[in-house]
């Protein structure tokens, strides 16, 4: 009897706890996704997942990769991580989390459709897309840019916007890719700063500035301008001749998840043909090469990706951010 009433009071406490906790955590089989996808895409992604797994109650929190990571790290430090799943811009950040023993491996994931080297061989994280960073221009711009060097032209003075690595995970990879591949190295970014380029906020801010005509050129992730152009925005995306940088928007499960089976189902869904076709329908280049890319993209084998060393990038992450900040500080 004693035991029973004890259990009952524990159950009552748990109920009270569930009521106290955020609504997202209330239902059984709940998952929280921390993502850097724009809200509309994140919603479409979880809607498609829910259609396949109606028993799982999944919700998401969205912010730029560095900010969502700061949120997660603060929660980890407080011993109360809210997220079960991460879907963020880049693999470098995932490698950092893997190193810090925060992630859970998903041994059973089926990656047979994917080329080797795309996912983590130890299966802690999995690439879901290919997101390249190139150049966007407003259709009223005086010239059509074809090369990264075009952004240094006097005609582009004061007219270039780009995301800051402090706000965007893709922008950090992009910065490292450019400085290690362009002949000027960091000198390229010093040139941009001297040409009055603005580096504040994330890719969304760049889209707003260029679509709004406040800036005429920008560095930006491919899907935003390609998708907005289809809706009638006066913007065009260019794959510069030197090549583009790329991130893979990897997904990973936190090892603190209370719902590993549902979390694995979410990963499996993103990696499935259906999940990849959804990514394509949203306007992203799918990670699975056998799934057709969406309208507005060139053939996949014509996209040239700048070589990039993730291990070196992870080691120099702080230095790279600091260097970028120093160049663009007024």
């Amino acid at each position: 009897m004693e035991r029973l009433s004890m259990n009952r009071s524990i159950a009552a406490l748990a109920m009270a706890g569930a009521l106290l906790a955020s609504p997202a955590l209330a239902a059984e089989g709940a998952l929280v996704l921390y993502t850097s996808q724009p809200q509309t895409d994140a919603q479409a992604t979880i809607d498609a997942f829910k259609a396949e797994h109606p028993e799982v109650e999944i919700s998401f929190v969205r912010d730029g990769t560095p900010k969502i990571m700061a949120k997660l790290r603060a929660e980890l430090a407080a011993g109360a991580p809210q997220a079960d799943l991460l879907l963020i811009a880049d693999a470098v950040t995932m490698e950092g989390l893997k190193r810090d023993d925060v992630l859970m491996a998903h041994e059973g994931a089926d990656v047979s459709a994917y080329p080797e080297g795309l996912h983590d061989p130890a299966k802690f994280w999995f690439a879901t897309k290919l997101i390249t960073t190139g150049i966007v221009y407003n259709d009223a711009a005086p010239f059509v840019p074809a090369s990264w060097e075009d952004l240094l032209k006097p005609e582009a003075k004061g007219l270039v916007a780009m995301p800051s690595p402090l706000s965007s995970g893709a922008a950090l990879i992009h910065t490292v890719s450019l400085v290690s591949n362009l002949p000027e190295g960091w000198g390229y970014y010093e040139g941009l700063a001297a040409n009055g380029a603005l580096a504040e906020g994330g890719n969304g801010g760049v889209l707003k500035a260029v679509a709004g005509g406040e800036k005429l050129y920008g560095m930006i992730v491919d899907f935003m301008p390609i998708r907005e152009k289809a809706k009638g925005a006066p913007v065009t995306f260019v794959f510069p001749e030197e090549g583009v940088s790329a991130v893979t928007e990897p997904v990973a499960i936190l090892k603190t998840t209370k719902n590993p089976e549902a979390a694995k189902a979410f990963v499996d869904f993103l990696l499935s043909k259906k999940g990849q076709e959804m990514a394509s329908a949203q306007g992203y280049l799918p990670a699975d090469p056998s799934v057709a890319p969406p309208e507005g993209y060139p053939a996949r084998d014509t996209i040239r990706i700048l070589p990039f060393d993730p291990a070196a990038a992870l080691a120099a992450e702080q230095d790279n951010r600091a260097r970028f900040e120093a160049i663009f500080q007024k």
Partner: protein
Amino acid sequence: VIASLPARRGGGLGESRLWLGVLFAIVLILAVLPVARLLGQAAGGGALSLLLQPASLAAAWNSIESGVLSAALALLLGGGMAVLLGLSDLPQRRPIGILFVLSMLMAPQVTALAFTVMAGPASPLLNALGLAPAAGTPNPLIGKGGVILVLGLHHAPLVTILLLAGLKTIPHELVEAASLAGAGKAAILRWIVLPLMGPQLVAASLLAFVAAFGNFGIPALLGMPAGYLTLPTLIFRQLVGSGTGAIDQAAILSMAMAVLVLVPAAGAAAVLARSATRRGGDRPLQRFLGLGRWRMPALALAWTVVGIVLLLPLGALVASAIAPTYGARLTPSSATLAHFAEVLWRQDVTVRAFRNSFAFAGGAALVLALLALPLAHALDRASSRWRNLLLPLIELPYALPGIVLAIACILLFVKPLPLVGLTIYATPWIILFAYAARFLPVVLKAPMAAIAQLERAQEEAAAVDGAGLLARLRHVVLPAVWPAVAAGGLLAFLLAFNELTVSALLWTAGTETLGVVLFSLEEAGLVSEASAVALSATAVVALLVVAVDRLGDRLPEGTLPWRF
């Protein structure tokens, strides 16, 4: 029997000492505890070097600069409107006054969003008029100038409200006497009205500075994209950029903000308290300023002001919300309601944010309204020494910038509560607590004014008949002052519903507020969706204003800012 009745002030505490103790404990927990915790952290951290970093100094300077310049603009514009609305025979004064004051009730982040979509080269409004800046022109409102301008426009009605209240205290006899002595209208304005309005002018400028200094929504949307950081946006950026690791620095900066803001806030309060005791003559000031042939130009000017602060920004928001996407041409055939469908039905986050904002604002308003009646009653009956001690403490969380209160709440709740071991950090309760602390003085104001006007005879008679305190509150006081309690609650709901600064630091998965999702959508470049959220939220605010206005005739004067 009569001799034993409670005296008008001071006595009558006997039966309710315990009750008073409970009420004042609540005040201490809501108002004093967070601030004391912040003080402790800042004193313990002690790192003055954090405060003297170039980024902190630059942000402090930007805060002071934008605060002072925007207050000057607000004083100029708000003062001009006060003269037109309070002293002149301007036609259509009532609609102009109401719309002008309503512009202040739009959330600052909504105002900021509206001005950015209105002013840039992509502005649907300016494009329709052929006035849009050429492509490649920076948005004139992004950056320092825009922050100052929009802050000034947003706070001008605050100045007008204060000045209109002040004008009512000037005896009309003075104007008549000067007029008989041959003084012209301009001379009366310059030599009679202006000097007498000195205290209100000082207080209004100080309060406009305080409001601008603590504002987050406007510098976040207009300043941050250009790297123009004020103290609130700097603290925000550091905290979201490096998590609670930056909490020490945030605490120090918050303390600096508190000091910088409490001096002018206390100054304004002191000036207003002194001037409130000055007695007017038999007749309050009449509208002696006949506009004559300037009537029509003045009317056009007043409507232009209303257009700039309210109608054009709202129009720009509508255009941006129904455009196919930001930057695309808006034509009758391309207009779409898809963005409203997206944010009101399809997107869980925005739907949840509406629900959360209703729940947080409603919960805080309800709790505070329940608390307001006994608390206002107790404060009214308390000795003036207690009242003078407690009232400033209650005001504290509202006078402090929202970001300072948010930091204080994080410090207070990041560890589990002692004794009970519960943690409310990263739950909805921390936001509710912060709202309750912040908006307590807003709820309290109207019931306190109403109770002060109450005849005590009825209550004393009930006491003689043996009615206890609760029974008297329930059956004697409440029936007389319920409109004031309801209005206080609704005003707090309105402010909490519009709120961004506090929740921007306290939200977590599932507890996003409307302010947070608006800001987040805008940052993700989803300007049309952000505009749809902004308009929907503004519609709720407008409905609330109508609801509160219905109570207007039964309220003490000065409760509703848009009634004058």
